[in-house]
């Protein structure tokens, strides 16, 4: 049982799980929950909107890096 578990938790499973966590964070933090009810305005727009704009740019960068280095993980047999 223990040996079995060790065999399945190999490098690719770990990498897939790590990317899964990264993707989950990218999705969940696209909305700045910690600014809930905040109405602060900066440079003409609500601050929470600036966060979202920055986060989407970051998401694109993360997806780009994923595409270059880890594409296929968890999906290709």
């Amino acid at each position: 049982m223990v040996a079995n578990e060790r065999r399945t938790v190999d490098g690719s499973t770990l990498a897939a799980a790590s990317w899964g966590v990264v993707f989950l964070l990218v999705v969940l933090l696209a909305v700045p929950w910690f600014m809930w009810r905040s109405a602060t305005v900066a440079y003409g727009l609500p601050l929470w909107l600036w966060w979202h704009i920055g986060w989407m740019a970051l998401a694109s960068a993360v997806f780009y890096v994923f595409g270059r280095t880890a594409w296929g993980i968890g999906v290709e047999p």
Partner: protein
Amino acid sequence: MNALTLQLGIVGAYLIIALGIGLVAYRTTDRTAEDYYLAGRTLGTVVLLFTTFATLLSAYTFFGGPDTSFALGPEWILVMGTMDGVLFAVLWYVIGYKQWLVGQSGGYVTLGELLGDRFGSTGLRALVAVVSLFWLFPYVMLQQKGAGLAITGLTDGAVPLWVGAGGITLFMILYVVISGMRGVAWTDTMQGVLMLGLVWAAFAWVLSAVGGPGAATAALREANPEYLALGGGAYTPQFVLGTAVYIAFGVTMFPQINQRFFAARSKEVLTRTFALWPVLVLLLFVPAFLLGAWAVGLGVDPGDGSVLPALLREYTPTWFAALVIAGALAAMMSSSDSMLLSGSSYFTRDVYRPLFGAADREALLARGGVALFATASFVASLVAEGTLVQIGNTAFGGFAQLALPVVVALYWTGTTRLGMYAGVLVPQVFYLASVFVPAVPETYLGWPAAVVGMLLGAALTIAVSTVTTPGVREDTSVLSGSRAD
């Protein structure tokens, strides 16, 4: 030149250009179903990016999105950004790339075909197609009605609804019959680039007229300070996250989107599209939806119509407002033509073929399917009331019910045919009941019924699969992407 002549001129010019592109596409299309439906699996990065976007949300960027922002507040940018920009991108990988791999090795054109082969079940294949068509048909109908209404509005009632909607329908039949996926994708790309330019021009124009974003936001604070605070009103955390989740999953099961997963030229195309997706969504939604929210502070009154056209009429020259409205009409058509094409493929391959056998000339039958589908939804758009309209309006939630059983089937070899039947059918019944039966609630602890139904579908697929044994014709090797076909 008056606005009406200009608007009709712009619509006319768009139609002629689209037909021209369709004819070029026709000349480069083989007479096979795969080429007609999937452009021979050759779409490149830019074309795939824009055709997916245009198919999905083009008219919505001009009308529905800014209207929701106007009515509920600018947080809609977050809902749609999370939904379309990041969550859909992740699903693009998890569902889309997997389907692409399997489609490459097995030569699949529709999702139903793939699942039917995997589970050795013509019944499941037909069920997936029928469920999809059930939600797609009224949705197309609403597009035709919307386009008809836009033309009626454009001409101040000189062109009655049935002539407007009928004319658009006829044009779409002609166009889709000629061009197939290749032409549809090319016009989508042209239209997507045009749209990006129009949205930013409108944004710059309105802002320069009102004195910049600072002034526009200050006016919004004056009119409704609540709109600047994140959350509140309709926006509860459950609504924000729940809506983003079920729309994103629903989108992946819309036939015209799902089919595009099969149409990419290469792995690299999918990789690049994946990374570009959040940026494209940001570039289109932020300016368009902000204009919708700012309109509240600028005292724009849309009356019965949409807020963005009303805002543009007030702050930009007539010709520009006309150009945007005509562009939006074109956008509506570009969504509908893709849906017709995909709807026809689901019908001819997954419903007709199992009943009557493979057609001798499938590409011809496919074109007949397009004409039939478009005519039927046009007739429905003239007579439909209540129920059919309601189905069209709740289509995203309906498609979302398919998504998780499909994900389970794509990744877990223990999935069985009976598990799929349970996971597909029961959530459909539950979701329909939440829409139509008053006794069944629409939210559960604040979460939309569509999200609850999705979880139910996943749980049922897994549970029933665990307690049933696979049939003899079930074949997990279909999904390994290594089948020699």
